[in-house]
């Protein structure tokens, strides 16, 4: 029994380890092509992620939006709906929260709550067209969600240079959120904030929903076999609506958290691709909400480490996307078409 457990763990973790090592190897090679020794590249990557108190806090902060978008992605993927629009849903969530909180001054508790809610609503709205078009016209959700990512990024760019641009100064960014609309910092002087625990709580709640409730079962059953799910009385339209709404809401809350906890304002290229890292994290966690906690930590560390190699070596932080892609490689190789 224990042996079987151990073997299961090994089978689960091995592909992740292989992908990680392959990715690190490739990044080291890329670094040496630019004249840095492989060891210095790996070292600054490590120090960016775990080197000191700041680095660790940065890793944690960046894993929050990854976790939230990952949860949203996991819900949809479990239902067999390929929602790759977490990035757009995150951006719109951040935008909705910012717009609301900049307009209406509120006391702290209320501000955090309504900011998160605005994020959830924004994210859901951004996922809605995919559900609607899939149900009405059978249009593939991949295309719709992907397109909406670009629309969201464009919208953000337009708003921060236009209607939402800061009042004083002329940078393409919004005004900062008022003090009352910010998550409490936990470990001054780092950026670590209380939103981390809120995100962890949501992950556990979603895990409960997935494993213990009828709606979670419906999502998984529809994802496993839409025909059987329909025959057994699961309503296709409800599954598609609810999965996209919940998935969008989670990513949207992630966006609200990022602006209320870490950046306090929006600007162009505000998200370094958290929504895409969320997809990687969700797949690495095999769409399990609880397993998403460690996997988004890994992705958060890679994002923070990428900033490390930029700061100390001047290499582009996007280099760490090579590692993210490598993490997916063994997983996608294992996904065989259903017979």
């Amino acid at each position, binding site marked *: 029994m224990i042996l079987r457990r151990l073997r299961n763990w090994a089978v689960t973790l091995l592909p992740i380890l292989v992908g990680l090592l392959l990715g690190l190897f490739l990044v080291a090679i890329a670094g040496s092509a630019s004249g840095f020794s492989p060891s210095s590249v790996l070292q600054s990557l490590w120090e960016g992620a775990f080197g000191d108190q700041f680095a660790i806090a940065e890793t944690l902060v960046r894993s929050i939006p990854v976790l939230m978008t990952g949860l949203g992605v996991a819900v949809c993927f479990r239902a067999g709906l390929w929602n790759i629009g977490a990035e757009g849903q995150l951006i719109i969530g951040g935008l909705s929260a910012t717009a609301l909180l900049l307009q209406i001054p509120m006391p702290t508790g209320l501000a955090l709550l309504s900011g998160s809610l605005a994020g959830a609503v924004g994210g859901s709205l951004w996922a809605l067209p995919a559900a609607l078009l899939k149900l009405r016209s059978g249009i593939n959700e991949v295309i719709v969600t992907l397109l909406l990512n670009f629309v969201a990024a464009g919208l953000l760019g337009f708003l921060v240079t236009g209607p939402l641009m800061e009042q004083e100064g002329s940078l393409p960014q919004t005004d900062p959120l008022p003090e009352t609309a910010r998550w409490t910092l936990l470990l001054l002087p780092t950026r670590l904030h209380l939103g981390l625990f809120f995100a962890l709580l949501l992950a556990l709640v979603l895990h409960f929903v997935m*494993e*213990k*409730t*009828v709606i*979670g*079962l*419906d999502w998984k*059953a529809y994802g*496993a*076999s839409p*025909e*059987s*799910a*329909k*025959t*057994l*009385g*699961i*309503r296709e339209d409800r599954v598609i609506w609810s999965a996209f709404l919940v998935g969008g809401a989670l990513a949207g809350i992630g966006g609200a958290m990022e602006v209320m906890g870490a950046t306090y304002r929006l600007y162009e290229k505000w998200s370094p691709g958290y929504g895409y890292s969320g997809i990687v994290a969700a797949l690495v966690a095999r769409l399990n909400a609880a397993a998403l906690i460690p996997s988004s930590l890994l992705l958060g560390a890679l994002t923070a480490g990428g900033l490390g190699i930029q700061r100390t070596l001047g290499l582009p932080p996007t280099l760490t996307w090579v590692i993210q892609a490598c993490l997916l490689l063994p997983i996608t190789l294992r996904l065989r078409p*259903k*017979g």
Partner: protein
Amino acid sequence: MAVSPVVQMFGIEKRFGEVQALKGVDLEVREREVHALLGENGAGKTTLMRILAGELGPDKGTVTINGQVVNRFSPSEAQKRGVGFVAQNFRLVPTLTVEENLSLSLPTKALCERAKRLAQELGWARGWDDEVASLSLGERQRLEIARVLAKEPQILILDEPTASLSPLEVEGFFSLLKGPAFDGMSVVFITHRLGEVAQVADRVTILRQGQKVGTFSGSTPIDRLAEMMVGPIEVRTNEQNRMKEPGQLLLVVKGLWVRSDRGTWAVEEAHLTVQEGEIVGIAGVDGNGQRELLEALWGIRPLQKGEVWLDGQPIQPHPSLWWTKGVAFLPPEPTRSLTFLSWSLKENALVRIRNRLSFLLDRRSASSLAEQWRSTFSIQADRIDRKVEELSGGNRQRWGIAMAMGLPARLLLLANPTQGLDVAGAAFVRRLILQKRDDGCGILLVSSDLDEVLDLSDRVFVISRGRLHRTEAKTAQEVGLLMGGVTVH
């Protein structure tokens, strides 16, 4: 006739985890013979054939094809040696068209053309651009056989080719098997219908719980064969001892019109009633609108015209409504559209009881239900956390029946319930159907197995090209004519 063996398998052993599927089996297939392979559900027939076809490697034992020992087991290797395999669970891609499926596995245009010609010889009557999902099981069977035949195999393996065919189609298939398309081939042929052995097989090998019982002449009497498979059993069910007269009207179907996936009329103006405690049978060759009729009744296909009434009230059919009203459905392909292949038996049971739950799942009830079904329906699985896809073909069917019939119901809609079941399994299911009827359950039995319909039903309809005809005919011959579209007055 030459009698040199083309295939020799010696001492084949195969294990799946803790399950020992084959325990040292020998098989010899001679040149140009039709060799039947018999055995209960889970006896190891499919596993043995998958080894011959190179899909699995044996743990122990040797396989010799045309005098050469096989030491690398892969499908392409086996094909090179002339083995063609028509699997029990077809390998067609349902979302692609017929044409696309052919070109997927046949590399050249010439091969595709040959496959099409063969399909036509086998009685193909559909378009090449139709989606495979819209084909009936019998049609898929034909396509699969044509696809494999196109590669001109020397040894052809057919895993339950007649399971989804009606008696007339079986006759046609057998005359082909003896005809020029299969000339010079050795055929290994798996079936649960013992009568077919005498009709076509030169020799027959019987497996029992992963071991070989023996190889016999094809003319061995049926009851001898059955006895060697499982020991003595009663094969036929007895319809006479009915307990109660039919009661209240349960289901009324009024003037139902349903479209097929292609948009043509699949069901035209169907009228039908089912009372408590009666079995209403619908006999027909697969693909005459049975699937569409059942799907429309079940609420997973739009009904264009007509009404459905339950308990004297018109209702809008929907699966969750039916389940909560105590109506259950065994769809035509339960492994694809009732069960979750990649899930454990336990999790499958959990989905089956979801309509009783409001918010939280009840895993404990699901587990005990799965345990209960496993023993009641004699499902060959050592644990309930085995996945459905780990079961043998017949055991998957049994699991589907358990999902449909394992909980109390007032009305049952059943499609081909005994398809792919061994003799004992089929007898069990027929007894269960009769027992449900005696308990007052109304049953709509749709089957391409004529004898089954005639044996069990109180009233019989024949479906032909989407039209239902009431018939008083009592013999398989008369009804068989009706199924072919000939009207007997």
